């Protein structure tokens, strides 16, 4: 994957974030044909039913609901705090973790099951050692 570092334009922050040329970004998951389990990213076998080669690529939804969260006040050096670490169940299957943005980091302002959209933005200005910029995904209250 690191060979991509010579291409132009931002790179995806994680392998399961897809940036199709000329298309909209999306999160890629995979789904088991046998038992319907949904995973982030690609894989071949199913850890729920042990099915072999039963898992196919599956485009994850850009809409979901907040399942759980925490508000991070102390993180590693250089990481801006506070922020909301959110666990979101996507419509149609799959659970993803990410920052919940455009919401005050205050438990009174955060509701379980609140509807959120998955949005794609620059990865907070973070660059790798080759100077490449990245696109990441975030959650924001559904518009």
């Amino acid at each position: 994957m690191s060979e991509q570092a010579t291409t132009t334009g931002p790179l995806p922050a994680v392998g399961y974030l897809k940036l199709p040329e000329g298309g909209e970004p999306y999160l890629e998951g995979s789904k088991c044909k046998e038992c319907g389990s949904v995973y982030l990213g690609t894989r071949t076998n199913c850890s729920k039913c042990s099915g072999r080669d039963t898992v196919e690529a599956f485009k994850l939804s850009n809409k979901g609901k907040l399942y759980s969260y925490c508000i991070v006040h102390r993180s590693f050096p250089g990481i801006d705090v506070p922020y909301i670490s959110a666990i979101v169940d996507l419509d149609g299957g799959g659970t993803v973790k990410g920052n919940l943005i455009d919401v005050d980091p205050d438990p009174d302002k955060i509701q379980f099951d609140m509807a959120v959209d998955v949005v794609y933005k620059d990865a907070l200005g973070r660059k790798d050692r080759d100077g490449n910029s990245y696109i990441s995904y975030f959650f924001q209250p559904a518009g």
Partner: protein
Amino acid sequence: MGDVYVMGVDMIKFGRFPEQTVPQLGATAAMMALDDAGLKMQDMQALFCGNLGQASGMVGQRILKEIGQTGIGVVNCANACATGATAFRQGWMSIKADVHDVVLCVGVEQMGRGLLGGAGGGSGIPSEGMLGSGTMPSVFAEAGLEHTRKYGTTFEQFAKVSVKNHHHSTMNPKAMYQIETPLDTVMNAEMISYPNTKLMCSVNVDGAAAAVLVSEKKAKELGMARAVKVRASVLTSDPYQDRDLVMPDVNTCTRMAAEQAYEMAGVGADDIDLIELHDCFATAEILHYENLGLCKDGEAGRLIDDGEVALGGRIPVNVSGGLLSKGHPLGATGIANIYEVSTHLRGEAGDRQVEGARLGMTHVIGLGSACGLHILEKVN
């Protein structure tokens, strides 16, 4: 297959010992457990050693280089925070299998300070603070708020766990801290990951604990006066859950282990007199009241409110001070829990003694996940 007995068990006072090596810390605990059993290194037929930080460093053999290279077989194991319990269980299995009569089990860890958890993202940039948080306080905060989501458990109820365990530790000279932390002190401490404040996070300390396990035949030979019987030993991993990839499930593997342990021992949760459970964060302890069957689902908040899990209550939990105040040297914790429960069953726990304790349980969970659970019984 006869029963297996804890014949000797001890732990060093948890603290920070940068001037000592991991094998030295383990060796100290091993010698204390041997003395407690009235046995020598020459009596040991195998060593089961748990350590995480130097998992590839042959820590067990290096302990023997400190206290006696007798040539016995050594197994080094690493299993996240269930490492010590796994070493103990491997020793138990070897006696159950009639391979050995007397074995030594050691858990040891030297910890750095600061946050635990991964900051890496797999790509060229860090993911922490962008794709949520992977720190341990955050992971367990999210697990705690899942309980809030289901049952309305409050920040204050989570905080009360820490008040209780810190209070317990004031009676435990081997705990890292012996300080009272009133509720407002806990709630107003530095917020790390809401709802876990700094006083609701386990303490990173260095520590070591060790146990000598023997067969029934050997126990009778040595005398049963202070022997503790192992009634159940269980190890589970996390079964598939839909949210696995982003939300480690600490609940299901604990529930499975509890069910198996109660069945193996032929007892129920009501029969247990004290529990040392894995309070790596205050939020986690609340979850495990229900996971271990101390109350019905949704009642854990009431349990802490009513004091049922405090010393003197219906089922005292973490009278040692728990990982929150005794400290959490990862690989040592599982055997330190065995020490605590055994000490109560022997009636030797001093001010924090759970009166009349006959049956006790120890529980650890390592993310990844591994759950180790033991039920111990007083013999005489």
